[in-house]
């Protein structure tokens, strides 16, 4: 059995807080660009943008980034998901916030940094994640975190969003069951 670590309401509150932190940290919404990383960073980025629109009244550009072509072998742990086109607004000189659902080893984020730089030269890049599960293998940290969840390597962290999976939850499936549930 798996444990629900974040409920629908927990997620909603986290999103709102992250949105506020982003705007506060950047002293406003000017030049902000949110880039969601496929797959679940995308609905998360959209929600953050919606929240910012509600309390700040600003329309933030949102893009999607697919890092399939930038991963090194060691990031390919699960079955490979097919690559998709990225869709980015103008990022030159902008304050880019990369958005992903889970931060783990950091390799996917490193790949995303490589990809972004190929698209142009952002003014700054920050990272926002819903869940930080630890076990970084590279010197990468998130600027905005929804929840820190200590895990072991064998644990399985599953983030589900209504837009992609039909419900809003964050679940952790513990080590022994993790092997079975896969």
């Amino acid at each position, binding site marked *: 059995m798996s444990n629900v670590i974040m409920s629908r309401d927990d997620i909603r509150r986290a999103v709102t807080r992250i949105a506020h932190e982003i705007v506060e940290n950047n002293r406003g919404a000017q030049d902000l660009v949110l880039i969601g990383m496929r797959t679940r960073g995308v609905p998360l980025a959209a929600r953050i943008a919606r929240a910012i629109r509600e309390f700040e009244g600003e329309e933030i550009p949102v893009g999607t980034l697919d890092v399939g*072509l*930038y991963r090194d072998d060691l990031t390919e742990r699960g079955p*490979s998901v097919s*690559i*998709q*086109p990225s869709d980015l607004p103008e990022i030159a000189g902008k304050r880019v916030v990369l958005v992903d659902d889970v931060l783990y080893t950091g390799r996917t984020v490193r790949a995303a940094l*490589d990809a972004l730089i*190929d*698209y142009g030269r952002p003014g700054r890049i920050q990272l926002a994640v819903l869940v930080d599960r630890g076990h970084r293998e590279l010197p990468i940290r998130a600027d905005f975190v929804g929840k820190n969840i200590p895990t072991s390597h064998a644990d399985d962290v599953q983030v589900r969003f209504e*837009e992609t999976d039909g419900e809003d939850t964050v679940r952790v499936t513990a080590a022994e069951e993790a092997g079975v549930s896969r």
Partner: protein
Amino acid sequence: MTTEARPDVVPAPFAAPSTDESGWKRRHLLDLDDFSVEELDLMMRTTDTMKEVLSREIPRVPALRGTTVVTLFYENSTRTRTSFELAGKVLGADVINIAASSSSVSKGESLVDTVKTLQAVGADVLIMRHNRSGAPYLAARTGHCSVVNAGDGLHAHPTQALLDLYTMRGALGDVRGRKVVIVGDLLHSRVARSNAWALTAMGADVVLCAPPTLVPARLGEALEDRLPPVRVETNLDRAIVDADVVMALRMQHERMQGGYVPGAREYSRLYQVNTERLARANPGALVMHPGPMNEGVEISHDVAHGLQSRVEEQVTNGVAVRMAVLWLITRTSTKQARAAAKGAL
């Protein structure tokens, strides 16, 4: 504890992709004769991504960094070779071009020896064009390199058919139920054969048209899946009615003198894709040609450069398609598999 996804809540860009690469098992791309619809679909979607890469300011990704790609062309072709070379470079691979002479056993190095040598030197992917049908199959059997067929004799030209399919889908959306007419020297055309396999697999209505002397044996007969299920027609005026796509094949001068047809004049009178004939096809029908074109023979100048012509688009799409091919076949190459096995937990 799963809740069912509510389709009306899932906007298209957020949906997880339906075809994933775990179904892709091929190490080689030799022909399209046994491709499933899912595999062709995956190839098309992957090409979409590659097209986006090409549209960037700096169209380069490190996907194939550390992979050595060798183009081994026994037949000259600047167009196809350059297309592959660029595809490899955009993906970050090291590309080496070798122009081999069409050597038989008696002169120069045998094909088997050449492949073994290249492998020993470090080639991961061999892109081969050869004037002998079946040559890439021999190369694929010879070692652990992945082999991509860039055209073998009269047999197959799979990347051409893939870029043709991609071009058609780009303009028509879907080829299912569409009438595609391919006209020309079918007997000697590997482009026609590969297109026939891909298009029939995708549900298109394929009509092949040629003078009777240039129709390959048994083609058009109901032979289950031994040959692609096409219709064969020797009268182009009849065949072209209601066509959604008309593809003209290059008519070589040697064939026109070789006793297959009485000559260029009669051929163009009966089989040329020109404005008059094109009017019998569906309005807006696509005109395609694998190139290079013999204007005035198999295709008129006006049609070749007219509004319905997709010839340039075919060439442009060629690079993206070849990038997709290189990406997918290297997903299952032994080098990647070994590295992944080393790095996995």
